[in-house]
């Protein structure tokens, strides 16, 4: 997993763990501040970074030997966004017709 010393994965695991806890705390605090429309965006941004942290480090996606796994993850996210975006597009433009 890591070419250099054996103990280094531990360090990265605890670092990621800390970052995730911080992220949770940040999500909670950010929700209490009135950012108008950006509240949702900030919450999603923090959640996505946390998810990426878990996926890349905890699920060993970062140093996966093949690019195939990354392709699987990327295409899944693409199709999910497709579902959300195109159906939202219909609801969004419904008031103009």
């Amino acid at each position, binding site marked *: 997993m890591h070419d250099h010393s054996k103990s280094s994965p531990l360090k990265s695991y605890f670092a990621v763990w800390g970052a995730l806890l911080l992220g949770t705390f940040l*999500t909670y605090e950010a929700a209490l501040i009135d950012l108008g429309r950006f*509240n949702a965006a900030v919450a999603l941004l923090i959640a996505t970074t946390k998810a990426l942290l878990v996926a890349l480090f905890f699920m060993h996606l970062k140093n996966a030997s093949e690019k195939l796994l990354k392709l699987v993850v990327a295409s899944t996210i693409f199709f999910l966004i497709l579902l959300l975006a195109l159906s939202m597009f219909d609801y969004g433009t419904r008031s103009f017709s």
Partner: protein
Amino acid sequence: MSDSQAAVQSHDGLHNPALLHHFADEGQQRDASSLGMWIFLATEVMFFGGLFCAYLIYRRLYFGDFGAASASIDAKLGGTNTAVLICSSLTVVLAIWAAQTARRSLMILMLIFTMLFGVAFLGIKGIEYKDKFEEHHVPGVSFSFANVPIPGHPDQYANPQHAQIFFALYFIMTGLHALHMVVGLGIFTWLLWMAWKGRFTPRYHTPLEIGGLYWHFVDIVWIYLFPLLYLIDRHP
């Protein structure tokens, strides 16, 4: 699946008992299992994706009512649950690391911790559901959500039907997630039993990695559920 693990793999001819007949070698079997698991996680993402799509659309249509309904859920409990799941993810990763570095007792300890965190999560979830049950916020016949002001518009009351949709989505999404958590606990009991019997060696611990991937996925789903369901409109 890690490179160093593959580098360490010595072709000492010791036939690994768990190598299935139709695979050429352990590398192929391990890659196949991890690719299979990632693809299964892709189906799970789309499975939850349908629910997120319904949530997204109704949140846009009935933002005020969703805010009122979400305000009635205890966000602190949700936050602690998120922290609990993150800790359980850490213990899973440590268990895999322990398996790779042949630390059997640490691995078993970490697996037990993971399951404890899982049970703790379900416990907190149970408390939340009990509160909801008492407040008659469970959708269906006994549902009542009268005269609850919309956050930010104190004189405007939330429409009970739209609030019922929020709670329907809330119970289905968190319920499905809790079901996945229960399945996860089942998998980890089986993993614990195999670890106890010493089946996992630095060379062969694929089931542990697959179990870990599944657990991390369930954690990621919760990472998204927490802000979207609990913190819709919390600012004063």
